[in-house]
């Protein structure tokens, strides 16, 4: 079930088209990755969802209704350019930010106590931000993002600028929040975290959405029918059973077993391929190569840019 959608978002800054007809659908309870090269328009889209800027065209819907300024209290947002008032005490500051999100002072206090305890920073309450290290400040920033129990969490590049320990902590927290029913959207360059965390992705390039869907489905669509097979037997026999629909990309022989990497151009099923191979050699392992998100990202962006270059000529 969808939690929120954007429909046909356009945003123009002077002569720059920052977003061009971008529609995404984020399912409830999912972790949604917003991917794209620098300057693609990710931050602009995130700011539109947060009601910080208004789109020139298009709408954002939250649980079926058009999003209003009241809904910002349901969102927790950690921007890419993040910081705190350096001269203000941490506790006071966290209380202030929580109250701005619509909590009463009392509610905010209860929730902050929970989070400060959880992150083991209760002794920092009366410290000023300028007294803390950067890593410590990041913990406080994370708390101020989640303190009001938002149902939608938006992180812009959450793992850039965080040290590995805090990055890991946030990863754990994101998963925990998802398990508690929150929906999470984050933008990132780090494809490794996408593989680890995301259920769904959308890829934005040059102000347009060029790809989206569940991670498994996206990968499936980008697989290129490559198989890696190790076997015991004669390479020539294998070559004989494979018809002209197959091309052999790589071939290695060693004493214990041989290895080939093949690609086929028609839609032969995996089982049929195995059946053919069984007649020629003893199969040790058989693996269909699924592309990594990194491969998908690069391939999708390159394809789009190449196509666009042709179109504009």
């Amino acid at each position, binding site marked *: 079930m969808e939690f929120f959608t954007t429909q046909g978002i356009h945003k123009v800054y*002077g002569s720059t088209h920052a977003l061009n007809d971008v529609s995404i659908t984020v399912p409830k309870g999912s972790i949604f990755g917003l991917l794209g090269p620098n300057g693609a328009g990710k931050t602009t889209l995130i700011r539109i969802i947060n009601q910080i800027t208004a789109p*020139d065209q298009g709408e954002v819907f939250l649980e079926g209704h058009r999003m209003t300024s009241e809904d*910002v209290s349901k969102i927790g*947002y950690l*921007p890419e*350019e*993040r910081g705190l008032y350096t001269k203000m005490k941490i506790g006071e500051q966290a209380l202030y*930010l929580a109250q*701005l999100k619509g909590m009463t002072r009392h509610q905010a206090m209860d929730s902050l106590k929970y989070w400060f305890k959880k992150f083991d920073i209760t002794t920092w309450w009366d410290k000023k931000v300028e007294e803390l290290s950067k890593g410590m400040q990041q913990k406080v920033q994370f708390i101020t993002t989640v303190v009001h129990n938002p149902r939608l969490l938006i992180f812009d590049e959450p793992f850039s600028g965080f040290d590995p320990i805090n990055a890991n902590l946030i990863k754990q927290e994101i998963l925990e929040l998802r398990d508690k029913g929150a929906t999470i959207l984050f933008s990132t360059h780090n494809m490794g975290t996408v593989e680890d965390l995301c259920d769904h992705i959308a890829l934005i390039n040059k102000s347009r959405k060029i790809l989206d869907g569940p991670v498994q489905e996206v990968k499936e669509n980008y697989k290129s029918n490559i198989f890696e097979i190790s076997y015991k037997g004669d390479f020539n026999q294998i070559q004989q059973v494979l018809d002209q629909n197959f091309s052999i990309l790589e071939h290695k022989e060693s004493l214990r077993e041989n290895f080939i990497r093949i690609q086929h151009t028609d839609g032969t099923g995996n089982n049929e391929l195995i059946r053919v191979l069984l007649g020629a050699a003893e199969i040790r392992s058989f693996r269909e190569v699924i592309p990594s998100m990194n491969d998908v990202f690069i391939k999708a962006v390159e394809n789009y840019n190449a196509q666009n270059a042709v179109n504009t000529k």
Partner: protein
Amino acid sequence: MNKTWLILKREYLIRVKKKSFIVTTLLVPLFFAALMFVPMWLATRDDKQERIIAVYDESTLFYDQLGQEGFTKYHFIEQEKFNALKSDLNDEEFYAVLYIPGNIYTVNKAELLSKKQVPIDLAEQIERKLSQVIETDKRRKVIEESQMPDLEQKLAGTKTKVSVSTLKVTETGEQKKSSSMVAFFASYLMGFIIYFFVFMYGSMVMRSVMEEKKNRIVEVIVSSVKPYQLMAGKIVGTALVGLTQVAIWIVIGVAVMGVVQNFLSPETAQQVGQSVMESQQQMGQAPAAMATEGNQMAEIMENIANLNIPLIIFGFVFYFLLGYLLYSSLLGAVGAAVDNDEDVQQMIFPITFPLILAIIMLVAISRNPEGSLAFWASIIPLTSPVCMLARLPFSPPAWEIALSMLLLLATTVGAIWAGAKIYRTGILMYGKKVTFKELAKWLTYKG
């Protein structure tokens, strides 16, 4: 609205709790009190030093005529003593030696010998005393020669001082007393207060915006509240800080006045009054003119009563509020547009220039409130908060006031609109040096 209130509260409390706020709030009145009080105190203190002046009077005109004044005593001495003192002034007995030559009547010169530099007040006192004695003597002789015993009274009767009351004829033909002097001070003071307030607290708004941008907290804030709410909270909160400061200053000012009055016992007050009178006499005012002092005071009171007080109060509040709103929203926009302190100077100049110009023109306008400079400066919105207000005590034509207010209102609304646009684009823009052309483009961006 609730969120604007939260922001307002934070902006207010964070500033009021700052050390620098507390220090300036307390030090500024102390500084002004010191400026007023210390010279007064020093003046009364100096007078308390007992000085005995040895007088050697060759002319024998002055014996018993000098007496005592304040803490200064005159002691007449003989020639031997004078000669002894002349060669040895170290004598602890006398502060100084006054030598009056035999021919003082014609040369008008005497000598005051002392070890230390004689205070200027004392030298003046002696000059005055000697002149008075000679003058009285000369008068007596003139009266004797003229055979007119009442000449003194007759001459006194010729003393004349003409005072010109300025009267303004209102449209209904009614004549109203107006005093250029009272109006001048009122206008200068109000113009200056507005200038000071707008400048000081307008730039406080700007610095606060810059700080939020520099800290990178602003994006978190605007994800919770609308940029205009943040800006409104900031502007109103800062204004309240300013009003708090001014209120404290007024309270301290009144308290200090009370203390000063208590401190100055009747005698010292009299002394101060006396020295003031003396200095007036020295300036050539005859004692007879003193009688008009009381009249003058009454006249000033009457003039104050004749000012259009409701108009001035309304005008002050109006120009004060709109002037502050106009400038603080523009300065807030500048704070949002720039990234670093170097760029500020460049962007801020076109905005503060009219304000500085207004304060420069203030004296000229107060002197000639109906001139064309005064007219234009009080119509053009960026200078009108200072300049029209300065003209109000002189009751300028109603249509000019209305036009000035209307233009200022329209400009302020426009400035708030433009300021809000620039603000919400600027606060999220980093690492870009903005130009005015770029700013103009931001006005077209949606939301």
